């Protein structure tokens, strides 16, 4: 287990998630990759297992990027930490959209930021890949788990199965495996 977890102060939680919310252009999995890098790898606030469980729970209701932030915040400092992490993550986007809405309803134009996003999109993909490789080394390195990861990838990327369905099936696979090893050994 990768424990030795450090206690985070509320101020540190707020600052970390505000930064993530201010720079994580690309949204969704890009946010998750940033949280994984900052909170799991660099700060060692929680382990890979816990973080990935939080990501899985986050698929149930609402946006999983926000939900993973709430989960990490709660894990560190309870309900206050959870709400603080969620609010800090949303705050930069909220301020940006408020400012842009003000301009939009006055001038009826969307700012031309397309070229910036065209530049950052490939890098966001790189960021997600790096996070995925890190997770795969820890959690999908053996034959059985690698096969499940590959099946989940194919189901979601190629066949458009919803994340929630994929996770439910994988969970049942885990149950079956646990039940079998319990019986045999």
């Amino acid at each position, binding site marked *: 287990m990768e424990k030795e977890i450090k206690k985070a102060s509320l101020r540190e939680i707020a600052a970390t998630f505000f930064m993530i919310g201010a720079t994580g252009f690309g*949204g969704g*999995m890009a946010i998750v990759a940033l949280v994984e890098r900052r909170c799991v790898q660099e700060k060692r606030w929680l382990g890979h297992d816990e973080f990935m469980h939080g990501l899985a729970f986050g698929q149930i209701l609402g946006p999983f990027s926000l939900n993973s932030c*709430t989960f990490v915040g709660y894990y560190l400092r309870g309900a206050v930490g959870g709400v603080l992490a*969620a609010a800090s993550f949303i705050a930069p986007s909220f301020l940006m959209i408020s400012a842009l809405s003000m301009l939009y309803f006055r001038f009826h134009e969307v700012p031309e930021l397309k070229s910036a996003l065209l530049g950052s999109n490939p890098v966001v993909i790189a960021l997600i890949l790096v996070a995925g490789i890190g997770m795969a080394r820890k959690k999908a390195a053996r034959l059985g788990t690698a096969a499940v990861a590959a099946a989940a*990838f194919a189901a979601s990327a190629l066949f458009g199965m919803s994340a929630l369905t994929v996770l439910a099936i994988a969970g049942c696979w885990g149950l079956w495996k646990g039940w079998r090893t*319990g019986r045999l050994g």
Partner: protein
Amino acid sequence: MVGIVQLAWVFLKIGVIFFGGGYVLIPLLHRIMVDQMQWLTLKEFLDGVALSQLTPGPLAMLATFAGYKGAGFAGALVATGCIFFPCTALMLFLSSRYEKFRRIAAVHHFLDGILPAVVGLVFAAAFNLGRTSLASARDFLLLGVGFALLQFTAIAPMAVILGAAAVGLLLHFS
């Protein structure tokens, strides 16, 4: 102008019904905001979607935009708070039960099974994003350089993302 209470109620309801998140939200929000409530015209709605995708926040940030249209800054604040309240409350609840439940053997096995699937989903997200946004040699070059920087150096990922955005702006990518 729209009443704040009505705004709060509508977005609270939306917050409760978006299971699975993501893109199921677009048709749902379209029906509610354009057809039923008529808070936004179709053009405003589509521009709002584009605006919310400019930010790191989730697509549901569209609530901020619609709230602003309905009742100014206060409306934006209320709409945003209300649309995210249900999922945040649910996550807090799940998180609070997490440590206790994972000690139950069956739950433990279930959660263990989920882990490799999460890995697959992460790669699927990269794949889907790549399918829509990797078109030219330039994109693959940026992908390669970004990957090398993120994997082998300690440069903050935020700096890499903002750097790539600056490159896009300065070189007028289109």
